[in-house]
């Protein structure tokens, strides 16, 4: 039962991450949507597969190793892409002005 709940959660995270990558205005905001939503969605679906699988323990452990490697690798690549994009010359378009939010 819990594996289907985890599967639904991961699929919704994946779909909203895709919407974020399509609709956000800038490289850095798109990268935010990509790395958060994709890492969380993939790890949740892989944990659901490891729970639902009827394989022996070593193969279940292989699903968990895949989830651990995604958690290790995906933020590292996203950080490198953000650093490379800033040195490539892309300036962020979105500026957050917290003082203007509090004092309109």
């Amino acid at each position, binding site marked *: 039962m819990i594996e289907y709940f985890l599967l639904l959660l991961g699929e919704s995270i994946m779909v909203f991450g895709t919407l974020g990558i*399509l609709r956000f205005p800038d490289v850095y905001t798109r990268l935010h949507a990509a790395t958060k939503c994709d890492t969380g969605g993939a790890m949740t679906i892989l944990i659901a597969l490891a729970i639902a699988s009827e394989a022996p323990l070593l193969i279940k452990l292989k699903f968990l190793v895949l989830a651990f490697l995604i958690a290790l690798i995906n933020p590292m690549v996203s950080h490198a892409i953000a650093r490379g994009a800033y040195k490539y010359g892309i300036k962020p378009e979105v500026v957050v002005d917290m003082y203007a939010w509090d004092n309109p």
Partner: protein
Amino acid sequence: MVEENLLVNPFGWAAIILVATSLILSYRVLFGPTLADRIVGINTVTTKTVVILAIFGFIAKEYFFLDLAIVLLMVNAVGGLILAKYMEGAK
């Protein structure tokens, strides 16, 4: 044989949704305004492909697909780092 059909298993429906979102994301890869947008799209599509390979290995009970998924994930890591270093140097 019924168990291996994609449309009776909820995990099969998950794989179909992942393929559909990857096809939608190929718009960002093809028509992205800058180079970094295309690299973000490629990275996301490859991560979705890793999950699709794991789901196929689970449904068909052929567990060598998991080794293929691990190798594809490591190729994704090395390729992303090399593209990021190229983007730092190119101006």
